[in-house]
């Protein structure tokens, strides 16, 4: 009996456990199968249908709802219902059904950028990735609110979704209807320039129709034009006046004609908003090898405002309110003053490398005063020069130095030099330094590297415009531990020594006893002979061919070490003297700034 009871007890127990297990096993266990609760773009629009029901409908009609619902990186500019209704009305239609699916697809394409572009990445220019339609969107700010294409305001920015960002906008974005040619041609402000465009044949260059295939390089263009009123101030009241003023051949379609060049100088390939123009410093125009220099002064953008050969040439200012006008194939700007190609004669450029405007600015009170490191806070102090590496341990030793007290052993032009630590094979030192040159008018130049000799200094090689299309390696290596005697001329006092050295590609560049100076300065002159005489060396690196009148780049790379040490490279000047200029020796320079010395009379 007792045994029986025990058996039943177990039986009941087992049944109980089993039934509990059965009941619970029937409930489906919930697993989390998504990695995030964030909805995707389509999901967000569907969830906010009071604002975006029409946009959602467009997405489904254009079959892009799935695309924007899947994972990826997108930015959608989402017009709300109100704005889409206004757009429908503007098109003279009554509802979305009146549009074809293809039209709606284009609509979506223009509103989507395939990148996540939050408002922190908006600039005063284009969004760096084009919309899916292949045309760029433009952003700016008005009254504290971001605008797209100068029309649609952003109502809410940076709505983050699983697959990108939505910016809600209050107006539908419509791709610009006119090409650059039409934009200029249809604007009465530009009637003279428009006629010049047509006559010179550039109207066709600037004309574009969506759907017509164009070479990639010519898909977008930038035009900077002058309004009729600006031209009238110059006495050009009609196209006839303009032709009379510029065209020297009469055949304005000829690429040799000055009017053709004048118009070409106002156009350039690629889409350049004002922001890009400022960032680039130069615009390469359709006029062959001719550039426009650009400059930002506070909020002003100036074209061709340059200091050339020591003289400031006032430039033309961009009229901001009439600029950044979007066309289907580019952007249109307007200049407040006329600008044209400058005809310049080749002139010698004596470039004291410690005196580029950028460096002078960065040196501040140290300029002509004390020394200063060229690299600070992990960056060069000015953007006019660069090193191959800013992280090498001795980068801080590269510096600007100034010597006020006159001396004769190693004087420097204008008293200052760059003292550098360059080595070919040393991980602690920079390998090369490069400089932005002053303006060089196109033509051929002899390049003289002027340095002070240091026994441990390396050999360096100069390269003009490294990495660019017109890269030129200068043939002579500059052996910085050699003095003037390396020319093979041992008697520097010889009356013919200068000519002999010149023939070998060497010269004195610092003022020497006997040279003529208008102010009769006698102190700090180099002796004609003796141990100090050969220590300041001008060495011919080679001849370069400058193809565009512009600021270029010259790089000095250490290629062989003698005894790799700190501050052994004493660079003073780079002289660009026109190759067929007979005078390569003079003027010579002095420690006192601005004092020039000429051939004895």
């Amino acid at each position, binding site marked *: 009996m007792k045994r029986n009871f025990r058996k039943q007890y177990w039986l009941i127990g087992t049944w109980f456990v089993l039934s509990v297990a059965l009941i619970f096993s029937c409930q489906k266990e919930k697993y989390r199968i998504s990695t995030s609760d964030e909805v995707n773009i389509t999901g967000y629009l569907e969830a906010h249908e009071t604002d975006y029901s029409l946009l959602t409908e467009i997405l489904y009609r254009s079959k892009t709802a799935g695309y924007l619902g899947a994972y990826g990186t997108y930015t959608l500019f989402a017009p709300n219902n109100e704005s889409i209704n206004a757009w429908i009305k503007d098109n003279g239609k009554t509802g979305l059904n009146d549009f074809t699916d293809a039209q709606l697809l284009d609509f979506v394409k223009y509103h989507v950028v395939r990148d996540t572009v939050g408002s922190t990445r908006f600039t005063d*220019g284009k969004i760096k990735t084009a919309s899916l339609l292949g045309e760029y969107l433009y*952003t700016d700010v008005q009254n*504290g609110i971001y605008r797209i294409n100068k029309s649609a305001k952003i109502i809410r920015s940076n709505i983050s979704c699983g697959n990108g960002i939505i910016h809600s906008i209050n107006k539908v974005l419509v791709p610009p209807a006119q090409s650059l040619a039409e934009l200029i041609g249809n604007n009465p402000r530009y009637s003279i320039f428009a006629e010049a465009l047509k006559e010179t044949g550039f109207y066709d260059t600037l004309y574009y129709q969506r759907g017509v295939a164009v070479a990639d390089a010519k898909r977008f263009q930038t035009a900077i034009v002058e309004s009729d009123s600006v031209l009238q101030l110059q006495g050009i009241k009609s196209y006839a006046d303009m032709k009379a003023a510029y065209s020297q051949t009469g055949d304005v379609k000829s690429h040799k004609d000055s009017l053709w060049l004048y118009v070409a100088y106002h156009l350039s390939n690629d889409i350049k908003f004002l922001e890009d123009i400022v960032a680039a410093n130069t615009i390469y125009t359709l006029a062959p090898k001719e550039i426009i220099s650009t400059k930002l002064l506070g*909020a002003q953008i100036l074209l061709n405002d340059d200091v050339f050969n020591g003289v400031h040439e006032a430039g033309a200012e961009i009229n901001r309110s009439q600029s950044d006008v979007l066309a289907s194939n580019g952007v249109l700007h307007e200049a407040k003053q006329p600008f044209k190609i400058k005809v310049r004669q080749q002139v010698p450029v004596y470039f004291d490398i410690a005196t580029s405007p950028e460096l002078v600015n960065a040196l501040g*009170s140290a300029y002509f005063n004390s020394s200063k490191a060229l690299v600070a806070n*992990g960056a060069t102090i000015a953007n006019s020069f660069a090193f191959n590496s800013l992280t090498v341990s001795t980068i801080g030793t590269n510096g600007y130095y100034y010597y006020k007290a006159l001396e004769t052993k190693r004087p420097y032009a204008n008293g200052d030099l760059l003292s550098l630590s360059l080595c070919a094979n040393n991980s602690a030192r920079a390998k090369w330094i490069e400089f932005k040159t002053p303006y060089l008018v196109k033509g051929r130049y002899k390049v003289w590297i002027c340095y002070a000799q240091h026994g441990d200094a390396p050999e360096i090689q100069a390269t003009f415009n490294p990495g660019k299309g017109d890269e030129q390696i200068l043939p002579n290596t500059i052996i910085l531990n050699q003095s003037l005697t390396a020319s093979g001329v041992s008697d520097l006092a010889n009356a013919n020594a200068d000519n002999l050295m010149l023939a070998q590609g060497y010269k004195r560049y610092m003022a020497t006893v006997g040279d003529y100076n208008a102010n009769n300065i006698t102190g700090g002159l180099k002796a004609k002979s003796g141990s100090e005489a050969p220590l300041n060396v001008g060495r011919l690196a080679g001849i370069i061919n400058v193809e565009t009148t512009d600021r270029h780049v010259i790089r000095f790379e250490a290629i062989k070490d003698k005894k790799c040490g700190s501050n052994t490279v004493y660079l003073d000047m780079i002289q660009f003297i026109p190759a067929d200029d007979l005078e390569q020796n003079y003027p010579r320079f002095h420690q006192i700034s601005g004092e020039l010395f000429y051939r004895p009379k």
Partner: protein
Amino acid sequence: MKRTILWSLVAAGSILLNSCNKWLDLQPQDGITRAEFWKTKEDVHAALIGIYSSLNSGPVEQQLFTWGELRADLVGLTSYATDDNRLVKNYNILSTNVIADWSAIYTAINNCNLLIDYAGQAKQADPTFTEAEYNTDLGEALAVRSFLYFYLVRTFRDIPLKLKGTSKDTDIVSVGQSTGDEVLKQIEKDLLQALDWIPEYHVNTSGYNATNTGRVTRPAVRAMLADVYLWLEQYDKVEEQTTKILETGRYSLIGAALPEIFDGGTMETIWELSHKNSSENPMYNIGVTARRPFTANVDILNNEIFPSNEGTDIDLFDSRGEGILYGMSGDLRKYGTESPDYYNFQLYRVSDVMLMRAEALAELGRGTEALALLEDLRTKRKAIRATDPNIEATDLEGIILFVFAERARELTFEGKRWFDLLRLAKKDNYANINVLVDLVTKVVDANVRQSAINKVRDVDSHYLPILETELFKDKQLKQNPFYLK
């Protein structure tokens, strides 16, 4: 047998009962509870010192510095700066930018609130706690709280005005958001109250004393009041308060600017955050060391603030310029030169008071007196001819601009520049908004400069957004409308 069991039960019971005492009474082993605290005047005093140490522990100073300098022109960023900092500099601030993190300030404010709430308990429990001591402690807490709220209201405008302490979870209640005007009214009220309660000095000595400068004294409260009244454009009251500070005769300029002024220990300081024998100055790592995110804008400083004396005597230089208070490469030497760094953080100095007074005098039409004050300061600081606009006493507008230029030279990097520019801009219903437009034109990167110029014309943009996480925590907070678009 039974007896043994009985006895053993009794024994076990007694052990259990006694041990229960400890079991059920859970006291933290390494701290003290509120019920145990706030019993004596020493407790209150310890809490007061705690308030000061919440100020000098790092985050508060850093935030005062970044709020006061980052959007202005005298401090720039190096490659070690964060993206958030860079976006602030470019006037591209979102509500997720950490510059809007006010938690360090509110933590310190809460410490003040707790003292204000509970000091009364100690007063009742401790008969040796005199009325004067009680008032001093309470007044200092009020003054520090007002000082912090003044920074908050100038940075965010509409903020939660929390005047009660939070010591447990149930204390966390939303107080909503007060308008800037309401906050400023409260600050004025509290400071006037503190003025009654706080003594002229804590230690009676004629020389520099670290206790007198490290803790709030009556002249320090007056300096805060003068600052608040300047912001409120109530210049007669600024004149009144600054007169009383200068009348004490306890503060004077030491002459040419020297690092000692900022190291701590001169007669110039009215109130400073002391790091001496305490925690290191956190500014070293963000403004002095080689890998610092913030750096002096040497370009602007050398060309606009401290131009060289060309044309007269090039060898003369302002004692506050390059080489003394900032290095050629941009290290902010006002915050020290070597590590570990125990420089104090100056909050109010007598020169600041002189300049506040000069500004008020000019606004009140007393140009001659204003110029005399400026002249006094400039002579002692060895200011140079190049920065002297040489104006007539009748040119009041000119004098006011001169004062602001002099403030840039005297209070460089001290977390005041942006508020100075904003104060100048917002005066007379934003009559001088171009001050900020010019600022933005100067400091913002070229590719977003036009955007920034168009943003800065919206006055809401002058105040920072409320951090996204704060909005999430407190549903009553309303975001500054500028950041909703």
